[in-house]
């Protein structure tokens, strides 16, 4: 069995901060002279190791372990996603004194969204990977590994490579997410999308099954400076199925923000 926390340990120097009674671990890595800071909030169970590996080439990357996630104790105190986001915002403020790009995936993206609403002056750019705040597909949590794989992947057969995650961690994280969200649409988050001041990229897999296809356009309509991207042939766990495409899009966006739409590849074949 592999614990999520152990996986993160390989990604940098481990440390922790104390906030709201939580002991929040984080891992820092990056080059000697980073060009900026990136804070990553991972979602349930599976991390963003390939994206992190790419970003650490240029940025100081801080991976924060959400209270109740990974190897941390079960979180029974946070009463809402905004409250959890507030805790994470305080932790981030202790670790990153100035501005940063914030990246979250799945439930971690929901927390990142709320963190941006609560600390808008510190988040320079926001990347939401497969966020589940808006129009999650209704229904109970998947009850079998096969059903889980069908919901998470465009190609469920790829789930086999990720089957080594400790089921106890999965159950703990699922319980927290279910308690805080109920698997329901976050109407308050939707209402406040227009308050997000920073450049925002929202990515979904073209075969996303956890969130309704109309969700992407809601983010695009409501967030003033936003882009939406569809990663072809990926489900909810984009990094597991199309890691290169995810890394390419997010890396470009972290560097270039809304100007990432401007073509930069040369068309010259033989000069």
């Amino acid at each position: 069995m592999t614990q999520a926390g152990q996986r993160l340990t390989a990604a940098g120097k481990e440390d922790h901060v104390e906030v709201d009674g939580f002991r929040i671990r984080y891992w820092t890595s990056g080059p000697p002279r980073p060009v900026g800071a990136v804070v990553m909030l991972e979602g349930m169970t599976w991390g963003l190791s390939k994206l992190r590996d790419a970003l650490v080439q240029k940025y100081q990357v801080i991976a924060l372990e959400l209270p109740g996630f990974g190897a941390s104790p079960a979180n029974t105190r946070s009463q809402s996603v905004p409250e959890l986001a507030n805790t994470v915002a305080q932790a981030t403020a202790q670790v990153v004194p100035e501005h940063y790009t914030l990246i979250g995936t799945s439930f971690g993206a929901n927390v990142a969204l709320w963190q941006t609403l609560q600390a808008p002056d510190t988040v320079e750019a926001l990347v939401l990977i497969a966020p589940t705040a808006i129009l999650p597909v209704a229904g109970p949590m998947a009850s079998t590994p096969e059903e889980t794989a069908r919901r998470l992947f465009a190609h469920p057969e790829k789930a086999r490579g990720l089957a080594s995650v400790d089921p106890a961690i999965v159950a703990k994280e699922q319980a927290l997410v279910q308690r805080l969200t109920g698997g329901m649409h976050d109407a308050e988050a939707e209402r406040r999308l227009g308050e997000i001041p920073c450049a925002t990229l929202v990515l979904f897999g073209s075969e996303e099954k956890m969130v309704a296809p109309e969700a992407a356009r809601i983010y695009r309509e409501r967030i003033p400076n936003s882009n939406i991207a569809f990663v072809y042939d990926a489900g909810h766990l984009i990094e597991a199925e199309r890691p290169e495409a995810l890394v390419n899009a997010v890396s470009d966006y972290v560097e270039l923000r809304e100007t990432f739409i401007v073509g930069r590849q040369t068309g010259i074949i033989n000069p």
Partner: protein
Amino acid sequence: MKASYLGAMGYAQRYNFPTTWPIPPIYHDPETSVRSYQEGIEECEFAEEMGFEWVSFSEHHYSGRIATGTPAVMAAAVAERCKKAKIAMLGHLLTLNNPVRVAEELGLLDNLTNGRLVIGFLRGTPNEDQTYSVNPSEGRERLLEGMDLIIKALTEPQPFSWEGRYYQFRTVAVWPRPVQQPLPPMVVATRSDDMLHYAAEHKLGLAVSFVPVDQMARVAEKYYAWCDEAGWQPTPDQIVYRGSIYLAETDKQAEAWLEGVKRAGPVPGGIAMQPAVSRAIQAARAGEAFDLRNILAGGVQGDVAGAARGLSFMGGPDTVVKQMKAFHDQCGAGVVDLFFQQPQVNHREVMQEIKLFGREVLPHIKEF
């Protein structure tokens, strides 16, 4: 069953072409070419007048046999003359094209025709891969991704980025959107299992070209089963068969015509390529290793890739009705898309065939 007229716009003197592909442009005479397109448009108009409910267009390159390398341009011209018929793009070769550009052309055509567009997705015959130097081994995946991207481009109301395997577009916002919402009718032209799956899962129709009825029946059987698994069943309009036709007043006349064609020598209707080129394409499409030395040593003669497979329908009206009924009964085909412009048949004769078809065949097949 409905009839569709394939607007091939064949070059009038196509009977002079060599049996190879591509056809060297030196065969092109501007005056003949202009006349050929005018005659082709007349045929489409007359077909509509005689009761054909669709007029179709197909992308083919570097040849005057089906001289519509840019089918959307041809469709737009014909749509101004044919005011009732569905304009069926059967279709763009997605493997060769920028899918966003295709989506833009389709959106515009649906607006120009006020919602008469039918969309077909296809890969094309092996020779077509060479038109824009597309790697044949990537064709299938390009097609699958292209279909997804076009559907997204035609349905997504907000600008978006596409991070694909073969296509990356950071801003897609197709304008105009189709008149038919959420999408115009779509068919996938294929006999491949993965494409049949795609069509079934996405509730798209099926088009099959130029194969015998038993072969199409086997394809259709798989498609229907997968549609059933996906929880739906296609309507007759969603099952299209494209075939070549020679219609005469009687079976005897048709047979006499065919004998004359055979006596005239090799039929210039195929798309033969140099043997080594043909082998290389087939190997790449199949994902197999290709060693040029074996080809050069083997002395392969006359290898033909995707050659025309003869006539699907031939005979007098009664015989042709029976032949079409077989496709209806055994395959569920609800639309026959008909290629009248055989190499040895001129414009006047095509017009006669259309008239005969409208008078003696169409009333019967409409009853299927």
